[in-house]
């Protein structure tokens, strides 16, 4: 038997697909973020926005609005049981829901307008996720301290102190979450009554379920998931890129003046190396609620809350340098400035091109100008937004509060009576859309010789009748219209039902058809 030695054996290029060297995690654990408290003008603005938005949300259901004895006195009420929506002086019936659709259109176009102008301002300032996370962070800081204290506490072993701090933090979070869920349901029923019922245990089970669900989501999203919601769950970060263009203001790290960054600027400078304004202090990263580094450029995770801007401005103030190393800037300005400081992209950022000899900025550098806001895109959004708004206002000012709708009986379309006259049946719906009772008059116009009678009433057959309608209700009548045989002109004649309130001079008309057999002519 011939035996090969080791060197003669053929070697195959093969590796196990699951070898430990090549295995990589497919699932990433969440990295904890401990945002540091920022201070500055944007932080103050965010406090203001937070106070206003939370104030509106929690207090709105308690506002009262007198609508007289026949309607609820809650300023904002979505009365699902009665299908009425009350917003201050406006009362909306379900068929007027297009007002809500119009408002949603305005909200959508407004969002486009804001985004194309100042980037993701919605995300950074007013999104409920941002506002509630901010609120939860206030609680977290008040109990556990600022960034360093929180990191230390988190890394430390479980002690009685840690337990007390954690339990109280989560308890307060849960209270806020419950208040959030509780406030939501108050928009759907009389707030003082409902809140009493909720605490008595006599409220509807749907109220408790809603509170429970919204408490759970508020607590989970605001306290536990935070930036994960924005990064992974929200579609808007993906969509908003379509609204942004090179003239939109976004939170930008101006690396044309920041680079090359250095922690030991003087030493490096002494060694004759170029130094940018960024001292690599990481203040911008520490305050970021998303835990990202704005110096990596624009990224999906950035909600443009501008807290890094505040943090960096604080550092620049201390260093005696111009603020705005991180600033709201447009991509076009940024690109222009990058071209200037890299001498047209031919090399790395050269700080000597940023400043002149007397250490002011080079005159060639671009700065944001307000007219960049006014461009065709924003004009289009603005005019679309205004057009929808004006259409809504016009429609609101001219809308009917007294309406008539008529359904012609289809089967049978007409009935021949003993005396040869022709009868048609109609379902007449009278809509009294104000919260006051009134007496209205229904008249027939046209259809010679015909008279109408109301089924189930003692009213005599006539060409008009007066009827009392309840406040804020639809009154449905069955009306028979009868035309003598000799008066029938066509197989299908049109005539009008007219309804009017002789006190307020409101009126409405409906053009109906009267059918007759061919033989009756």
């Amino acid at each position, binding site marked *: 038997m011939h035996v090969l030695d080791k060197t003669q054996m053929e070697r195959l290029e093969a*590796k*196990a*697909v699951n*070898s430990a*060297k*090549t295995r*990589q*995690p*497919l*699932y*990433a*654990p*969440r990295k904890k973020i401990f945002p540091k408290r920022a201070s500055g003008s944007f932080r103050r603005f965010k406090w203001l926005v937070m106070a206003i938005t939370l104030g509106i949300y929690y207090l709105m259901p308690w506002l009262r609005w007198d609508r007289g004895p026949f309607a609820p006195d809650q300023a904002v009420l979505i009365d699902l049981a009665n299908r009425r929506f009350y917003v201050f002086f406006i009362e909306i019936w379900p068929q007027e829901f297009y007002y809500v659709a119009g408002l949603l259109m305005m909200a959508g176009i407004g969002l486009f307008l804001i985004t194309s102008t100042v980037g993701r301002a919605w995300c950074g300032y007013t999104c409920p996720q941002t506002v509630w996370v901010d609120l939860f962070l206030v609680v977290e800081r008040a109990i556990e301290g600022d960034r360093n204290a929180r990191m230390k506490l988190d890394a430390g072993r479980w002690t009685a102190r840690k337990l007390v701090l954690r339990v109280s933090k989560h308890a307060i979070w849960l209270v806020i979450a419950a208040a959030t869920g509780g406030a939501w349901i108050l928009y759907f029923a009389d707030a003082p009554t409902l809140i009493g019922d909720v605490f008595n245990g006599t409220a509807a089970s749907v109220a408790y379920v809603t509170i429970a669900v919204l408490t759970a989501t508020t607590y989970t999203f605001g306290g536990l*998931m935070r930036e*994960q919601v924005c990064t*992974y769950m929200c579609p808007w970060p993906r969509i908003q890129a379509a609204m942004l263009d090179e003239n939109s203001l976004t939170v930008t790290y101006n690396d044309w003046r920041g680079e090359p960054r250095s922690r030991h600027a003087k030493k490096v400078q002494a060694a004759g190396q170029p130094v940018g304004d960024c001292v690599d202090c990481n203040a911008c990263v520490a305050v970021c609620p998303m835990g990202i580094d704005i110096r990596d450029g624009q990224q999906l995770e950035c909600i443009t809350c501008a807290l890094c801007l505040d943090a960096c401005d604080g550092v620049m103030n201390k260093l005696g340098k111009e603020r705005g190393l991180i600033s709201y800037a447009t991509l076009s300005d940024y690109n222009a400035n990058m071209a200037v400081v890299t001498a047209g992209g031919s090399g790395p950022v050269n700080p000597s091109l940023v400043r002149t000899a007397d250490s002011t900025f080079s005159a060639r550098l671009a700065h944001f100008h307000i007219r960049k806001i006014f461009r065709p895109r924003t004009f289009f959004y603005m005019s679309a937004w205004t057009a929808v708004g004006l259409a809504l206002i016009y429609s609101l000012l001219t809308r009917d509060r007294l309406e008539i709708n008529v359904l012609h*009986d*289809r*089967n*049978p379309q007409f*009935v*021949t*009576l*003993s*005396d*040869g006259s022709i*009868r048609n*049946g109609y379902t007449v719906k009278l809509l009294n859309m104000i919260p006051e009772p009134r007496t209205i008059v229904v008249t027939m116009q046209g259809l010679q010789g015909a008279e109408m009678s109301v*089924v*189930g009433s003692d009213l005599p057959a006539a060409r008009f009748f007066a009827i009392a309608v309840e406040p804020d209700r639809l009154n449905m009548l069955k009306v*028979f219209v009868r035309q003598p*045989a000799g008066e029938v002109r066509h197989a299908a004649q049109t005539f009008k039902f007219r309804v009017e309130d002789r006190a307020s001079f409101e009126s409405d008309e409906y053009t109906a058809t009267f059918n007759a057999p061919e*033989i009756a002519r």
Partner: protein
Amino acid sequence: MSSEHIDEVSGISTTGHEWDGIRELNNPLPRWWVITFYITVAWAVAYTIAYPAWPMLSSATKGVLGYSSRNAVKIELAAAEAAKGKYVAAIQQKTVSEIAADDALREFAVAAGGATFKVNCVQCHGSGAQGSKGFPNLNDDDWLWGGTTEQIQQTIAHGIRFASDPDTRQSEMPPFGDIITPEQIAQVGAYVASLSGKVQDASLIEPGAKVFAENCVACHGDNAKGNKELGAPNLTDAIWLYAPGETAIAVQVRAPKHGVMPAWIGRLGESKVKELAVYVHSLGGGE
């Protein structure tokens, strides 16, 4: 293929999968997402245990909660029946005119009667109760056997010319083809047609009136207004069960057709007949 590889452009490691030089970046899912996925899987398993789910040979697993959509419907139907109970009891006890006089009861009876009508009556009277040739229109104000709620109730309960019900409404017009001459039939046809419209040959009217007085007044009355006791139609109005016009009338005189309506009391029961009577009365022609 399986060695660690970092994408040069993005600096992100790849999964090691490669297709024609295209590599897949490894952007790991967040772990909570995966946990959520497993929770939904667990939920699905628990759901199939709690509710009917797995198909077996003859049926499906029942589920430990014992839910069944049939039972759910039964419960809802029982609840609906219970809700109707008050009205059903009142309809059982009251007469049709009492029902018609009570707004709530009438509304209930009209709705219930309408439903019964759509199942049992539309085959002859039409879905809008508009009738057709030989089947009366129930919307109009012309009633062969009377149009009060009681009379309608009687008609529905016991039918018309329905042999197996002793209380049925009974009448028959003799075939006058055997009794009078064709000329007389043409004359009486012209006369009857003239009562509600025009006829071609006015000279037939006068002899026709004589024929009518001799043969027809017993049932249709001196003035041809009919007799509801006998179900004899009013011949002076604009409504014709079969067809208008002297020819059609002559046809009916020579060899009359007689409609038959079944008695419904046995099939529908007292309450439903009452509801139907109130419904038919509400159609617009009730007396």
